[in-house]
């Protein structure tokens, strides 16, 4: 091979090598030349490698390529090439011979497939790998699988079917024959064997016609070589059922041998590859050989060629020169400058600027802080050395002997320590102070007075001059669309008001639904909760008047529509409410019953059971049917018929309290109880005898009621006392609560007085005098003490017709005990006790009054409410002919008024500060009104001023009274005169009538147009002669005006002008 590499390429081609590689297309004279060039180039490359083993097959390959090229070009050159090939590769004689030996067509067939590859310089001859030792594979080694398939050991006919090569005979060898000729070694994998001609001929000779070779005897004898090559046809490729074929010519045998060698070579190559691959795999990855692909031209070299710039002409020469002296001009000065000077100077074109991206530098900081209270241990110990020292330990006053005292007192003047001297000196000082105190009121609170002055002068804010609503209460179930008929403030609790709600029905309506149960309620409103009443007191009948016991505020009595009086005891409820306010809320109905039970625990057992059982009894069918039978039964029925527990709609938590006792119907009123008053601090006997209890007594056991049946009843609230007397504990029905005293009042016309209001003088209860108002407007002044020895005395001392309508208010002034305010219909009056005429009468108002109260803090102020929903404030010191203030509070009639009670201990200023007015209207709304400060706080000396005002009224009254006789006489005289005048007038009128008729007739003739009119007038006023004259005057005037204005036609004008 080394020879081939060196000797192969002819010198001419060698010379070509430097020229051709760059421009391969520049001089392709012919294909074969190019191919030869390539081969030569390869050969050179191989030679450079000094590899000793380019395989024979390579040579064959190159020969193929050359043959292919030659076949394409012309047979002639192929020959020449073949000859060249013979010359060049001495070792490849076989290949050369095969090609030269006329097997051109066969080889050409194979070469055609590689034709393009053969033209490509990239298809080089594969360098033969080292056959034995595991040499590294050459750089351009082509793996076996990429090699062209082995040439077939047969030819193909036109249809592509395999046919034996020329000179090859297919034959079938039996097993015997194979054994005989010694071909048993042949089989798959080892297909070729050799048999000498003698063996075959001997077999034919020996076996004769049955020899498998017999048919080929002549051809075997004619075979041009020896021994003959025989081949195992394993696949029966020709389809003739034969299993062997034998080459009878040398050419065919050569082909077979070539194929066999090639197959062997490839097998060896494969082995080597496998070995290399195994070795490669065994190597670490980094050491494995990388495959370098040979360069393939895809046309890029053309692009490079086109893109490359090449000089096409000689470069132009240019010489630039400068004279030496022109360097280093004098105008140029170079110097060092400070960097920052340069930066800031105007010469600096590239000025520094701020880049906001780098402006803000953020730094992250991780800081951990933990707050831990420092612990400190400290101890102290009291030494206990200093014993406690009270400031004063003296237990007995120091004193000096009487003698010493006397000596001091007697010490003469001017002597040291003379008391007389001392007194002399200080006496005047003291006297001045004493006199000062005498002439000025030292207890006057100057600061309060200052405040008052400020009020008077400043005018005050809106809140200080206007009546404003602070809160309002209404409840959908209990009070909506009902009339608030009575209001009571709880005497012992702040901000709690009780209201009695009654149906807005007339008496007739009530009668019509008589017999149906309609429990009524008293609601306790707490300012804290404007939605839910704090407590609901249930009553079997509507309550029109009620009052809390002023000294035992848990007791409360109410007068019902049917005349009975009911008593509630809230002591248990009060505890419960207290607890509820503290936290948990109790159950509703059950708690109410339990509360009653608990309340009963305080009182003796028999009385307890009664109300408790009553309240638990289911409602009887006829609640009012008790009649005369058992009063207690009626009470029981009344007690039981209230709907148990509380109502629905989320009010479950509102406790409902049922009444504890009820008066006996037989002994009660027979009409609606209109007023009820507790009588504190007294004890009333059966005859009405009043004994005053001790000063500061905390007992209040009696109350009085008045009703429309003319009776004033006095009740003892200690019902238990009644029970205890002789009766058994369980005799419930025998509980008869009777009044202890009854006063019957007669009205002006001799009927039962329809009482509406009561007014006692609580300061002088023992005198037994009281006022009562009636439905007929009467004011009764009566004495409830029954005189000794009289069974049916006339209790009334006087009975006066005060008003036209019912007396709706009867109130003693809180400041003047003998002054009573009455109010009824459209008027209110002030009465003085014992007087027969009102001290003062107001003018008639536009609307019917419905309620009236005195101001609790201002003696001269009273409040009236009317049907139109307005509140009138009368300040009698301001004006007495009209209200000072009139405020419309509601669109519905106001039905009741009540001021909150004040503890007696509170000062006037305190009372004034807390004053609130509760206003109930006809739709069940309770309003709490705040009054302006000027209405709450009395003006200076108001009481005195009011006193003088009252005195003035008294004087006026006295004056009027004194003039009464004279007036009466004058009136009488006037009446007589009037009668005379009337008689005279009648006579005169008759005379006039006659005269007027004549005048009318005359006038009718004179003035026809207005005649008819005038006649009418005459008919109407036959006696009005003067009118007649005036009429004529008027007509004249009218006509003149009309003429002036041109309203009349000319003739009429003329006519009138003539007149």
């Amino acid at each position, binding site marked *: 091979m080394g020879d081939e590499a060196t000797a192969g390429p002819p010198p001419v081609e060698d010379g070509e090598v430097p020229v051709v590689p760059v421009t391969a297309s520049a001089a392709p004279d012919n294909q074969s030349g190019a191919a030869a060039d390539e081969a030569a180039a390869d050969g050179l490359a191989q030679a450079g490698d000094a590899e000793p083993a380019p395989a024979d097959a390579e040579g064959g390959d190159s020969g193929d390529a050359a043959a292919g090229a030659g076949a394409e070009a012309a047979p002639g050159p192929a020959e020449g090439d073949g000859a060249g090939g013979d010359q060049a590769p001495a070792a490849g004689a076989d290949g050369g011979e095969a090609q030269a030996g006329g097997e051109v067509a066969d080889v050409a067939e194979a070469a055609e497939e590689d034709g393009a590859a053969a033209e490509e310089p990239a298809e080089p001859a594969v360098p033969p790998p080292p056959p034995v030792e595991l040499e590294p594979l050459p750089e351009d080694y082509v793996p076996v699988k990429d090699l062209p398939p082995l040439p077939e050991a047969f030819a193909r006919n036109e249809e592509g079917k395999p046919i034996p090569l020329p000179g090859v005979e297919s034959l079938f060898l039996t097993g015997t024959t194979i054994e005989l000729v010694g071909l048993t070694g042949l089989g798959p994998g080892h297909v070729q064997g050799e048999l000498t001609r003698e063996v075959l001929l001997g077999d034919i000779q020996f076996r004769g016609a049955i020899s498998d070779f017999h048919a080929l005897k002549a051809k075997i004898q004619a075979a041009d070589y020896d021994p003959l090559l025989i081949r195992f046809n394993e696949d029966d490729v020709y389809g003739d059922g034969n299993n062997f074929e034998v080459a009878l010519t040398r050419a065919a045998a050569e082909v077979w041998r070539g194929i066999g060698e090639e197959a062997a070579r490839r097998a060896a190559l494969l082995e080597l590859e496998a070995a290399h691959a195994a070795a490669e795999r065994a190597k670490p990855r980094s050491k494995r050989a990388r495959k370098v692909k040979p360069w393939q031209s895809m046309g890029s070299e053309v692009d490079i060629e086109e893109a490359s710039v090449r000089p096409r002409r000689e470069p132009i020469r240019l010489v630039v020169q400068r004279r030496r002296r022109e360097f280093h001009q004098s105008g140029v000065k170079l110097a060092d400058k400070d960097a920052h000077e340069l930066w800031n100077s105007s010469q600096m074109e590239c000025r520094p600027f701020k880049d906001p991206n780098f402006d803000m530098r953020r730094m992250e900081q991780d800081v951990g802080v933990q707050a831990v209270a420092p612990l400190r241990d400290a101890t102290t110990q009291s030494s206990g050395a200093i014993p406690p020292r009270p400031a004063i330990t003296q237990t007995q*006053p120091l004193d000096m002997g009487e003698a010493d005292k006397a000596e*001091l007192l*007697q010490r003469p003047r001017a002597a040291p320590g003379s008391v*007389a001297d*001392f007194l002399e000196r200080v006496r005047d000082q003291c006297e001045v*102070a004493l006199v000062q105190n005498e002439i000025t009121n030292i207890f006057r609170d100057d600061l309060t007075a200052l405040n008052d002055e400020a009020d008077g002068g400043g005018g005050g804010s809106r809140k200080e001059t206007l009546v404003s609503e602070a809160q309002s209460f209404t409840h959908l179930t209990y009070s909506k669309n009902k009339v608030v008929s009575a209001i009571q403030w709880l005497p012992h609790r702040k901000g709690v008001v009780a209201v009695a709600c009654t149906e807005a029905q007339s008496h007739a309506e009530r009668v019509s639904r008589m017999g149906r149960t309609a429990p009524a309620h008293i609601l306790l409103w707490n300012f804290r909760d404007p939605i839910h009443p704090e407590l609901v007191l249930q009553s079997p009948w509507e309550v029109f008047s009620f009052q809390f016991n002023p000294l035992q505020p848990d007791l409360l009595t109410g007068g019902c529509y049917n005349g009975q009086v009911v008593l509630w005891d809230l002591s248990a409820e009060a505890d419960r409410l207290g607890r509820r306010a503290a936290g948990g809320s109790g159950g509703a109905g059950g708690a109410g019953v339990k509360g009653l039970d608990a309340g009963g625990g305080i009182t003796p057992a028999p009385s307890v059971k009664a109300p408790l059982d009553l309240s638990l009894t289911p409602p009887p069918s006829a609640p009012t049917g008790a009649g005369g039978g058992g009063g207690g039964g009626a009470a029981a029925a009344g007690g039981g018929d209230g709907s148990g527990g509380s109502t629905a709609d989320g009010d479950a938590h509102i406790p409902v309290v049922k009444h504890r006792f009820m008066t006996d119907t037989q002994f009660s009123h027979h009409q609606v109880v209109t007023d009820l008053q507790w009588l504190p601090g007294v004890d009333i006997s059966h005859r009405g005898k009043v004994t005053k209890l001790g000063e500061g007594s905390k007992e209040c056991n009696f109350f009085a009621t008045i009703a429309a049946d003319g009776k004033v009843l006095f009740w003892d609230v200690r019902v238990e006392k009644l029970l205890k007397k002789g009766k058994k504990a369980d005799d419930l029905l025998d509980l008869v609560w009777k009044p202890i005293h009854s006063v019957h009042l007669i009205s002006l016309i001799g009927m039962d007085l329809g009482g509406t209001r009561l007014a006692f003088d609580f300061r002088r209860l023992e005198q037994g005098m009281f006022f009562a108002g009636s439905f007929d407007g009467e004011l009764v002044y009566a004495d409830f003490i029954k005189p000794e020895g009289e069974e049916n005395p006339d209790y009334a001392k006087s009975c006066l017709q005060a008003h036209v309508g019912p007396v709706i208010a009867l109130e003693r002034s809180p400041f003047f005990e003998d002054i009573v305010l009455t109010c009824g219909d459209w008027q209110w009056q002030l009465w003085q006790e014992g007087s027969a005429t009102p001290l003062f009468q107001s003018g008639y108002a536009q609307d019917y009054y419905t309620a009236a109260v005195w101001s609790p803090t201002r003696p001269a102020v009273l409040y009236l409410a009317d049907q139109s929903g307005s509140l009138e404030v009368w300040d009698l010191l301001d004006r007495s002919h009209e209200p000072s203030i009139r405020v419309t509070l509601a669109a519905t009639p106001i039905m009741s008024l009540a001021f909150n009670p004040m503890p007696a201990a509170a000062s006037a200023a305190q009372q004034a500060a807390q004053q609130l007015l509760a206003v109930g209207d006809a739709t069940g709304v309770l309003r709490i009104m705040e009054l302006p400060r000027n209405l709450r706080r009395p003006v200076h000396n108001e009481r005195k001023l009011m006193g003088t005002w009252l005195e003035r009224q008294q004087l006026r009254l006295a004056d009027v009274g004194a003039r009464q006789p004279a007036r009466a006489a004058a009136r009488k005289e006037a009446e007589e005169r009037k009668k005379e005048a009337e008689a005279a007038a009648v006579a005169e009128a008759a005379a006039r009538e006659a005269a007027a008729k004549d005048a009318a007739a005359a006038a009718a003739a004179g003035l026809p147009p207005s005649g008819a009119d005038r006649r009418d007038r005459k008919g109407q006023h036959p006696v009005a002669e003067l009118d007649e004259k005036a009429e004529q005057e008027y007509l004249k005037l009218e006509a003149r005006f009309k003429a002036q204005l041109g309203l009349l036609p000319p003739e009429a004008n003329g006519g009138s002008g003539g007149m």
Partner: protein
Amino acid sequence: MVDVAAVDETFKRLQSHKGVLGIIVINADGIAIRTTFDNDLTVQYAALVSHFTVKARSAVKKLDGDNDLKFLRIRSKKHEIMIAPEFEKSHEYYLVVVQDPSKET
């Protein structure tokens, strides 16, 4: 005796004023030398008023060393207590007059 009469006369004169409830003369030790109250009330007044007066005086003197308490009026809800002190080494007395001007004597 003349001086006793003078004391008596002063007492009478003071008492003739409207609403004077009582008069006491107390010495520096808080001992009532002469009184118109009963014993218990006198002892109470004497002890309490003398303490109070000393305190009041010290307040005045501490505010201004040259100053001294001259007269003390304690107005209470019910009455007024007037204290006329004299602080001289040899003879220190307090005259206490209690007055309720709204009360008729």
